[in-house]
C-alpha cells in the first residue's frame, strides 16, 4: 500500500496550524497589496487583510508561483510515495491548470484534482481525500473519485454589499444581473465553474432564509433528500462576520437538527472580491468509501 499525502491551498480555509494537526499540507496563496506580496496565513492574517481592504488598498490575487508549488511537492514527496493536490476551483483561478502542467513532470506521483471546489467544500474534499487515502486508495484513484463526486456540493453566498463585486470587475455577469436602484444583498451561487447571481434579498434575514431554502432544495432534488443517516455535511463560511455565522448556525440547526455544521472564514481570495460581512451556506454529500 502506497503512502499518499494530501496537499491543498489556503483557499480551503485550512490554516497552517490546522493543516499540521490534520496531516494536510497547505500551500499559502499570495496576495499583491499595494504592489507588495503577502502570503495568506504566513505573513498576512485575516485581520490585517480586512484592515487593508477597508482602507481601500489595491488588492490583487495571484496564483502560487510554480516554484513554491514544486518546492512544497518535492518536500512532501521526500516523505510520501504519492500526493493528491486539491487546488481552488478551476472556474475561479488558473491555479489548477498550472498545477496540472507542473504535475506532468512527476511521473504520476502528483495527481491534481479538478473538482471545482472552494472554501468549505474544498476543505471537505481534503477531508474526503484523507479518508480515501487511509482506506488504501492510490493517488490516482482518489483523484478520480473526487472528480466524479464534484457536483455533490453546493454553495450560496450572501453579500453585504455590491461594492467589491463591482470594483473587482471580475464577476461582472453576476453584478450586472443585480444592478438596480434599491440597495440589495445579492445571493450568489457557486456551482461547478459558475459563480453567478442566484437571488436577491433586502435584509440579512431574507438572505439567510433564501440560502437555507436553496440548500434544502438542493438536498431534496440533487442529493436524495433528507435521510436518517444525515448523509450531508453542512458548512457556514463568512468574511469578517464570525458572530453572525454563529447565530446563523443556530438557525440552520433548527432546520437540520443533529447535523454537523462547520464554520470557517471564507478564503481571502474570495473575500477580496466580495468584501466583509458576507455569509455563506454550503453542503456536501458525504462520500461512501
Amino acid at each position, binding site marked *: 500500500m502506497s503512502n499518499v499525502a494530501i496537499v491543498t491551498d489556503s483557499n480551503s480555509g485550512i490554516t497552517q496550524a490546522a493543516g499540521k494537526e490534520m496531516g494536510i499540507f497547505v500551500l499559502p496563496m499570495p496576495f499583491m497589496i499595494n504592489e507588495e506580496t503577502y502570503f495568506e496565513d504566513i505573513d498576512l492574517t485575516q485581520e490585517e487583510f480586512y484592515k487593508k481592504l477597508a482602507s481601500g488598498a489595491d488588492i490583487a490575487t495571484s496564483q502560487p508561483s510554480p516554484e513554491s508549488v514544486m518546492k512544497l511537492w518535492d518536500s512532501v514527496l521526500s516523505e510520501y510515495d504519492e500526493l493528491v493536490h486539491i487546488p481552488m476551483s478551476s472556474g475561479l483561478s488558473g491555479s489548477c491548470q498550472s498545477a496540472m502542467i507542473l504535475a506532468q513532470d512527476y511521473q504520476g506521483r502528483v495527481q491534481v484534482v479538478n473538482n471545482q471546489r472552494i472554501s468549505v467544500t474544498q476543505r471537505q474534499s481534503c477531508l474526503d481525500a484523507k479518508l480515501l487515502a487511509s482506506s488504501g486508495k492510490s493517488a490516482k484513484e482518489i483523484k478520480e473519485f473526487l472528480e466524479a463526486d464534484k457536483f455533490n456540493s453546493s454553495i450560496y453566498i450572501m453579500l453585504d454589499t455590491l461594492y467589491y463585486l463591482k470594483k473587482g470587475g471580475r464577476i461582472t455577469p453576476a453584478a450586472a444581473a443585480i*444592478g*438596480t*436602484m*434599491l*440597495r*440589495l444583498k445579492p445571493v450568489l451561487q457557486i456551482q461547478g465553474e459558475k459563480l453567478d447571481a*442566484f*437571488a*436577491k*434579498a*433586502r*435584509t*440579512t*434575514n*431574507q438572505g439567510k*432564509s*433564501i440560502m437555507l*431554502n*436553496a440548500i434544502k*432544495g438542493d438536498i431534496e432534488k440533487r442529493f436524495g433528500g433528507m435521510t436518517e443517516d444525515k448523509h450531508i455535511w453542512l458548512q457556514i463560511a463568512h468574511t469578517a462576520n464570525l458572530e453572525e455565522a454563529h447565530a446563523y448556525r443556530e438557525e440552520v440547526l433548527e432546520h437540520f437538527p443533529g447535523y454537523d455544521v462547520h464554520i470557517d472564514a471564507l478564503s481571502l481570495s474570495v473575500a477580496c472580491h466580495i468584501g466583509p460581512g458576507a455569509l455563506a451556506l454550503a453542503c456536501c454529500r458525504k462520500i461512501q468509501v
Partner: protein
Amino acid sequence: MSLQQIDAGMLSKMFLAGAKNLENKKEWINELNVFPVPDGDTGTNMTMTIMSAAREVTELGDAITMQGLCKAISGGSLRGARGNSGVILSQLFRGFTRRIKEEQTLTIPILAEAFDKAVETAYKAVMKPKEGTILTVARGAAQKAEELVEEGCTDMESFLSAVIKHAEYVLSQTPEMLPVLKQAGVVDSGGQGLIAVLSGAFDAFLGKEIDLSIKPAAGQKGAEGSARENQRQAEEQMEIKFGYCTEFIILLNKTFNIKTEMDFKAYLESIGDSIVCVADDSIVKVHVHTNDPGLAIQKALKYGALSNMKIDNMRLEHQEKLFKAAEASKAGNASPADSTPSAPPKDYGFIAVSVGEGINEIFKSLGVDYIIEGGQTMNPSTADILEAVEKVNAKTIFILPNNKNIILAANQAAELTAEKDLFVIPTKTIPQGITAVINFVPDLSPDENEANMLSEIGNVCTGQVTYAVRDTVIDDKEIKKGDFMGIGDDGILAVGSDMASVAGDTVSGMLKEDSELISIYYGSDVKEEEAESFRAQVAERYPDCDIELQYGGQPIYYYVMSVE
C-alpha cells in the same frame, strides 16, 4: 293588474335602470367609505363594473333573448369588474344569470332561486367573507325571497318590494356587524350600491319613466348626439365641477379596440365628465371636462401621439367649444392584428399594479415586465389585467396587485386566462410587491417561488401617510378633515396636523424588535429636502436600522413606508 312574470325585454330594462340608478348615486356612495382617504371609491368601482355590462346589454338592440342578455350581463360585468365591491357585484350577476339563462320568463320561485345562486357564487369568490358588507345585504335579500316563496307569495310587485325592503333593513344593520362602520357613522357602501341597483330595477318594473340611455360606445348612435348636447348644456348651467375643457386627437400607434376604448372612457369618467371619445381606424378624438387635464393626456399618450390639443379653463371663460365629431365615424373595430409574439415565450414574467414614476422605475429595475398604472385612485379592472397578461410573453406570469382592492380583480383575471399560468401574489401594498419581486428566484419552480414570495410578504409591515377627506372616527381616533393620517396594515397608526410627526409616529407604530430595514418612498407632493430631513429624523431615532429613501412619485400618499 300588474305584471306577474319578467321576460328578457323587461329584465333588460330593469338591469339598465338599476345601472343608471347606481350611477346617479355614485358620489353619495363614494362618501360612505369608512376610511376618509382620497381613494377606494366604492361607488365609482361598482358603477364602472355595472356600466361595462350595461353597454353590452345596450348593444344587444331590440332582439333580446334571455340567453343573450345573461351573457351580456355576466360577461360585461366580469370584464369590467373593479375593486372588491365591483368584483362581488359581478359575481352576484354571474350566479344570478347562471340560474335564469335557460328560462324564457322569470317567476317568483325562479327569482328566489336565482338570488340564492347569486349569493352562493359571490361568497365563493371571496376568500374570507366578511359580514356587514354587500355580501350580507345580498344574502338577506335572498333569504327574504325564499321565505316569501315558502309563504306562497304570488304577486311579483309585492315580492320585489318586500325583498328590497328587507335588504334595506339588513343594510341599516351593517353598522351593528362591523364596528368600523358604526364608529364612522355610515352603512356599508357596497351594500348601499346593491340597494341602488335593486331599487332602480324595481322602478323600471313599476313602469316609472326612466332615462335608460347608457353612454354608448362612441359613434354608435348618431341620433343621440343632440340629446347629449342638450344634456351637456344643461350641465353647464349648473355649477362647474370640472374646470378644464380638454380636447385632443390621438394618432394611434396601438390597436384601439372596443375594450381599450371602454377602458379609456372608464378612466376619463373617473377623472371628469362630459366625455366624448370617438375612434376610427387611425385616430381617436377625445373631449373631457376634468380638473386635471394632465391625467387625460398622460393616459392618451399610451395609445399614440397627440395633436390638436386644446385646454380651456371653463371657470374663467365659462364658454366651451363643443366637440363636433360625434357622428364623424364608426367605432374602430378591433383590428385583429394581434401582437402575436414571434419570439418564444420566456419562463417567467411579472405584472405589477403601480402608481408614481419612481415606484414604476423601481419595479422595472427589478425586472417587472409590465406596469398597470393604477392602484390608489384608480383600481384597474379585470380587463386591464387581462390586457397586460396578453402583452407579457411568458409562460408563467406573476401578478402583483399591490392593493387589497385589486386582488379580487386579479384573481378573476387568472381564472379567465387559459394559455398562460397566472399566479396572483396577494400583495396589498407597494412595499409588499417590491419584496415579492425581489424574492423571486429564476432557478426555482413557479410553486416554490409562490411559496417563497407568500412567506416573505408576510414579513413586511407597510405604513402610508395621507390626508383625511372628511371628519370621522376610526379605531377610537378622532380624525378631522385635512388631518394627516398614518395607516398601517391593521388600521390607523397616527393622526395629527403635522406631517413629519405623523410620519414619524407611523414608523414607530410599524417597528418590531427585530426590524432591520426601513424603506421610505416619498410621494409627488413631498419635496426632496423634506424627505431627506425626515429620513435623518428616522435614522437618529432608530440607529440600529438601515434606512433607505427612494423617490416614489406616488400621488395622494406623501410617504409609503415599509419595515422588514
